[in-house]
Protein backbone atom coordinates (compact mmCIF):
# COMPACT_ATOMS: atom_id res chain seq x y z
CA UNK A 1 0.00 0.00 0.00
CA UNK A 2 1.21 3.47 -0.78
CA UNK A 3 -0.18 5.02 2.38
CA UNK A 4 -0.12 3.16 5.67
CA UNK A 5 -0.90 4.16 9.22
CA UNK A 6 2.08 5.76 10.89
CA UNK A 7 3.77 3.31 13.25
CA UNK A 8 6.49 5.58 14.60
CA UNK A 9 6.67 6.64 18.27
CA UNK A 10 5.55 10.19 17.44
CA UNK A 11 3.22 10.60 14.46
CA UNK A 12 2.19 14.21 14.98
CA UNK A 13 4.96 15.45 12.77
CA UNK A 14 5.60 15.61 9.08
CA UNK A 15 8.98 13.89 9.14
CA UNK A 16 7.50 10.82 10.84
CA UNK A 17 4.94 10.55 8.04
CA UNK A 18 7.47 11.10 5.29
CA UNK A 19 9.92 8.61 6.79
CA UNK A 20 7.69 5.53 6.70
CA UNK A 21 9.44 3.65 3.90
CA UNK A 22 12.84 3.26 2.35
CA UNK A 23 13.99 6.53 0.74
CA UNK A 24 10.59 8.23 1.09
CA UNK A 25 11.93 11.25 3.01
CA UNK A 26 14.97 11.50 0.71
CA UNK A 27 12.84 11.40 -2.44
CA UNK A 28 10.43 14.04 -1.13
CA UNK A 29 13.23 16.41 -0.05
CA UNK A 30 15.16 16.00 -3.29
CA UNK A 31 12.00 16.60 -5.32
CA UNK A 32 11.31 19.80 -3.37
CA UNK A 33 14.87 20.95 -4.02
CA UNK A 34 15.04 20.00 -7.72
CA UNK A 35 11.64 21.29 -8.90
CA UNK A 36 12.30 25.03 -8.41
CA UNK A 37 15.60 24.55 -10.28
CA UNK A 38 13.57 23.87 -13.47
CA UNK A 39 11.92 27.22 -12.97
CA UNK A 40 15.33 28.87 -12.38
CA UNK A 41 16.65 27.19 -15.56
CA UNK A 42 13.83 28.37 -17.79
CA UNK A 43 13.75 31.86 -16.34
CA UNK A 44 17.53 32.19 -16.96
CA UNK A 45 17.08 30.82 -20.48
CA UNK A 46 14.39 33.40 -21.17
CA UNK A 47 16.64 36.14 -19.82
CA UNK A 48 19.60 35.03 -21.96
CA UNK A 49 17.53 34.83 -25.14
CA UNK A 50 15.84 38.14 -24.37
CA UNK A 51 19.20 39.87 -24.01
CA UNK A 52 20.08 39.22 -27.64
Amino acid at each position, binding site marked *: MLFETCTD*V*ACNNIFAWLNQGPLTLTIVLHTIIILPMFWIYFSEKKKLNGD*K
Partner: protein
Amino acid sequence: MAEKKASVWTSISFWRRSAAWVTGFATILLIWLTFDTISQIRMGTDEELAKGIKRRIPAPTVINYKIGYKYDEKRGLEVPVIGPEKNPLFGKELSPKEAKNLLHLGKLTEQAKNCMDCHTLLGNGAYYAPDLTKAWLDPMWAKGGPMQAMTGKNSKEEAMVEFLMHPDKYPTHARMMPNLGITEKEAKGLVAFLKHMSSIDTNGFPRGFSKTIKDYETGGTYAK
Protein backbone atom coordinates in the same frame (compact mmCIF):
# COMPACT_ATOMS: atom_id res chain seq x y z
CA MET B 1 29.71 32.94 -39.01
CA ALA B 2 26.58 31.70 -37.25
CA GLU B 3 25.79 33.42 -34.03
CA LYS B 4 26.55 31.17 -31.07
CA LYS B 5 23.52 30.39 -28.92
CA ALA B 6 24.00 31.30 -25.25
CA SER B 7 23.78 28.27 -22.98
CA VAL B 8 22.12 28.38 -19.57
CA TRP B 9 24.66 25.83 -18.31
CA THR B 10 27.49 28.30 -18.71
CA SER B 11 25.51 31.15 -17.18
CA ILE B 12 26.98 32.27 -13.86
CA SER B 13 23.65 33.70 -12.84
CA PHE B 14 21.92 30.30 -13.22
CA TRP B 15 24.46 28.56 -10.97
CA ARG B 16 24.41 31.41 -8.46
CA ARG B 17 20.63 31.30 -8.16
CA SER B 18 20.60 27.48 -7.95
CA ALA B 19 23.28 27.47 -5.24
CA ALA B 20 21.44 30.16 -3.30
CA TRP B 21 18.19 28.18 -3.47
CA VAL B 22 19.75 24.83 -2.43
CA THR B 23 21.83 26.37 0.38
CA GLY B 24 18.94 28.48 1.63
CA PHE B 25 16.47 25.60 1.60
CA ALA B 26 18.95 23.23 3.30
CA THR B 27 19.66 25.82 6.00
CA ILE B 28 15.99 26.33 6.79
CA LEU B 29 15.39 22.55 6.73
CA LEU B 30 18.29 21.89 9.12
CA ILE B 31 17.09 24.58 11.54
CA TRP B 32 13.58 23.09 11.40
CA LEU B 33 14.94 19.55 11.93
CA THR B 34 17.04 20.73 14.89
CA PHE B 35 14.01 22.11 16.72
CA ASP B 36 11.94 19.08 15.70
CA THR B 37 14.63 16.79 17.16
CA ILE B 38 14.76 18.76 20.41
CA SER B 39 11.07 18.05 20.98
CA GLN B 40 11.53 14.38 20.00
CA ILE B 41 14.38 13.73 22.42
CA ARG B 42 12.87 15.58 25.37
CA MET B 43 12.64 13.30 28.39
CA GLY B 44 9.09 12.25 29.30
CA THR B 45 7.39 12.86 32.64
CA ASP B 46 6.33 10.53 35.44
CA GLU B 47 2.64 11.26 34.65
CA GLU B 48 3.12 10.20 31.02
CA LEU B 49 4.70 6.95 32.21
CA ALA B 50 1.85 6.23 34.61
CA LYS B 51 -0.71 6.88 31.85
CA GLY B 52 1.23 4.66 29.41
CA ILE B 53 1.93 7.52 26.97
CA LYS B 54 4.88 6.44 24.82
CA ARG B 55 7.89 8.69 24.45
CA ARG B 56 11.23 7.97 22.88
CA ILE B 57 12.99 8.77 26.15
CA PRO B 58 10.86 7.98 29.20
CA ALA B 59 11.05 9.69 32.61
CA PRO B 60 13.76 8.61 35.10
CA THR B 61 11.03 6.81 37.11
CA VAL B 62 10.98 4.18 34.35
CA ILE B 63 13.47 2.36 36.61
CA ASN B 64 10.49 1.52 38.86
CA TYR B 65 8.89 -0.47 36.03
CA LYS B 66 9.52 -3.81 34.42
CA ILE B 67 11.23 -3.33 31.06
CA GLY B 68 10.94 -5.85 28.28
CA TYR B 69 11.89 -6.03 24.63
CA LYS B 70 9.44 -7.12 21.97
CA TYR B 71 9.58 -7.51 18.21
CA ASP B 72 7.15 -5.07 16.62
CA GLU B 73 5.73 -6.63 13.43
CA LYS B 74 4.64 -3.30 11.92
CA ARG B 75 7.85 -1.42 12.56
CA GLY B 76 9.97 -4.46 11.75
CA LEU B 77 12.23 -3.93 14.75
CA GLU B 78 12.44 -4.58 18.48
CA VAL B 79 10.95 -1.99 20.82
CA PRO B 80 11.20 -1.63 24.60
CA VAL B 81 8.02 -2.49 26.48
CA ILE B 82 7.61 -0.52 29.71
CA GLY B 83 5.40 -1.96 32.44
CA PRO B 84 2.58 -1.96 33.21
CA GLU B 85 3.95 -4.21 35.98
CA LYS B 86 6.32 -2.56 38.42
CA ASN B 87 9.77 -3.93 39.11
CA PRO B 88 11.57 -1.31 41.21
CA LEU B 89 15.35 -1.24 41.08
CA PHE B 90 16.81 -2.87 44.23
CA GLY B 91 13.21 -3.51 45.36
CA LYS B 92 12.60 0.12 46.36
CA GLU B 93 10.32 2.40 44.43
CA LEU B 94 11.88 5.81 43.87
CA SER B 95 10.20 9.21 43.67
CA PRO B 96 10.77 11.24 40.45
CA LYS B 97 13.40 13.34 42.27
CA GLU B 98 15.24 10.34 43.74
CA ALA B 99 15.21 8.55 40.39
CA LYS B 100 16.53 11.66 38.63
CA ASN B 101 19.36 12.02 41.15
CA LEU B 102 20.33 8.35 40.89
CA LEU B 103 20.37 8.56 37.08
CA HIS B 104 22.44 11.72 37.28
CA LEU B 105 24.98 9.97 39.50
CA GLY B 106 25.08 7.10 37.00
CA LYS B 107 25.61 9.47 34.11
CA LEU B 108 28.42 11.30 35.92
CA THR B 109 30.08 7.98 36.79
CA GLU B 110 29.75 6.79 33.20
CA GLN B 111 31.49 9.97 32.09
CA ALA B 112 34.13 9.94 34.84
CA LYS B 113 35.08 6.30 34.27
CA ASN B 114 34.98 6.82 30.50
CA CYS B 115 32.92 3.70 29.70
CA MET B 116 32.85 4.76 26.04
CA ASP B 117 36.57 4.13 25.84
CA CYS B 118 35.64 0.44 25.35
CA HIS B 119 31.81 0.19 25.26
CA THR B 120 29.15 1.67 22.98
CA LEU B 121 26.26 3.66 24.44
CA LEU B 122 23.42 4.66 22.11
CA GLY B 123 25.71 4.38 19.11
CA ASN B 124 28.56 6.39 20.63
CA GLY B 125 31.81 4.87 21.82
CA ALA B 126 34.01 1.93 21.00
CA TYR B 127 33.38 -1.65 19.92
CA TYR B 128 36.10 -3.20 22.07
CA ALA B 129 33.69 -4.28 24.82
CA PRO B 130 29.98 -5.24 24.60
CA ASP B 131 27.38 -2.68 23.50
CA LEU B 132 25.72 -1.29 26.65
CA THR B 133 22.67 0.33 25.00
CA LYS B 134 20.41 -2.60 25.91
CA ALA B 135 22.68 -4.20 28.53
CA TRP B 136 19.82 -4.30 31.04
CA LEU B 137 17.91 -6.64 28.71
CA ASP B 138 20.91 -8.86 28.01
CA PRO B 139 19.94 -12.50 28.83
CA MET B 140 23.44 -12.94 30.26
CA TRP B 141 22.21 -11.03 33.34
CA ALA B 142 18.72 -12.54 33.55
CA LYS B 143 17.60 -15.26 35.94
CA GLY B 144 19.23 -18.48 34.82
CA GLY B 145 21.93 -16.60 32.96
CA PRO B 146 25.63 -17.00 33.72
CA MET B 147 26.21 -13.62 35.42
CA GLN B 148 23.91 -14.17 38.40
CA ALA B 149 25.43 -17.61 38.94
CA MET B 150 28.98 -16.27 38.63
CA THR B 151 28.51 -13.37 41.05
CA GLY B 152 26.35 -15.43 43.43
CA LYS B 153 23.57 -12.83 43.43
CA ASN B 154 19.84 -13.39 43.09
CA SER B 155 18.85 -10.35 41.06
CA LYS B 156 19.99 -8.65 37.91
CA GLU B 157 20.78 -5.34 39.62
CA GLU B 158 22.77 -6.93 42.46
CA ALA B 159 24.77 -9.04 40.02
CA MET B 160 25.53 -5.92 37.96
CA VAL B 161 26.64 -3.94 41.02
CA GLU B 162 28.89 -6.77 42.15
CA PHE B 163 30.42 -7.09 38.69
CA LEU B 164 30.96 -3.34 38.30
CA MET B 165 32.73 -3.14 41.66
CA HIS B 166 35.01 -6.11 41.04
CA PRO B 167 35.13 -6.75 37.28
CA ASP B 168 38.64 -8.20 37.55
CA LYS B 169 37.28 -11.03 39.72
CA TYR B 170 34.96 -12.28 36.97
CA PRO B 171 36.72 -13.33 33.79
CA THR B 172 33.78 -13.12 31.39
CA HIS B 173 35.72 -12.56 28.23
CA ALA B 174 39.24 -12.65 26.84
CA ARG B 175 39.07 -8.84 26.92
CA MET B 176 38.57 -8.57 30.68
CA MET B 177 37.16 -5.38 32.19
CA PRO B 178 39.67 -3.66 34.49
CA ASN B 179 38.85 -2.63 38.05
CA LEU B 180 37.96 1.05 37.76
CA GLY B 181 37.51 1.62 41.49
CA ILE B 182 33.73 2.04 41.21
CA THR B 183 32.07 2.42 44.63
CA GLU B 184 28.82 0.69 45.56
CA LYS B 185 26.88 3.95 45.32
CA GLU B 186 28.33 4.71 41.89
CA ALA B 187 27.63 1.16 40.73
CA LYS B 188 23.96 1.54 41.77
CA GLY B 189 23.79 4.77 39.79
CA LEU B 190 25.31 3.03 36.78
CA VAL B 191 22.77 0.21 36.96
CA ALA B 192 19.93 2.77 37.09
CA PHE B 193 21.51 4.56 34.14
CA LEU B 194 21.71 1.28 32.17
CA LYS B 195 18.13 0.34 33.02
CA HIS B 196 16.87 3.73 31.88
CA MET B 197 18.94 3.53 28.68
CA SER B 198 17.43 0.15 27.81
CA SER B 199 13.94 1.74 27.90
CA ILE B 200 14.83 4.29 25.22
CA ASP B 201 13.24 3.62 21.84
CA THR B 202 16.31 3.50 19.60
CA ASN B 203 14.45 2.30 16.46
CA GLY B 204 15.69 -1.23 17.14
CA PHE B 205 19.35 -0.38 17.70
CA PRO B 206 21.42 -2.47 18.34
CA ARG B 207 19.71 -4.68 15.78
CA GLY B 208 19.07 -8.36 16.45
CA PHE B 209 19.39 -8.07 20.21
CA SER B 210 18.28 -11.32 21.86
CA LYS B 211 15.69 -11.11 24.58
CA THR B 212 15.67 -14.50 26.30
CA ILE B 213 18.25 -17.08 27.22
CA LYS B 214 16.63 -19.44 24.69
CA ASP B 215 16.74 -16.86 21.88
CA TYR B 216 20.31 -16.08 22.83
CA GLU B 217 21.35 -19.71 22.59
CA THR B 218 19.59 -20.23 19.27
CA GLY B 219 21.14 -17.23 17.56
CA GLY B 220 18.84 -14.30 18.40
CA THR B 221 15.47 -12.98 17.31
CA TYR B 222 16.30 -12.71 13.61
CA ALA B 223 17.58 -16.30 13.39
CA LYS B 224 14.03 -17.67 13.62
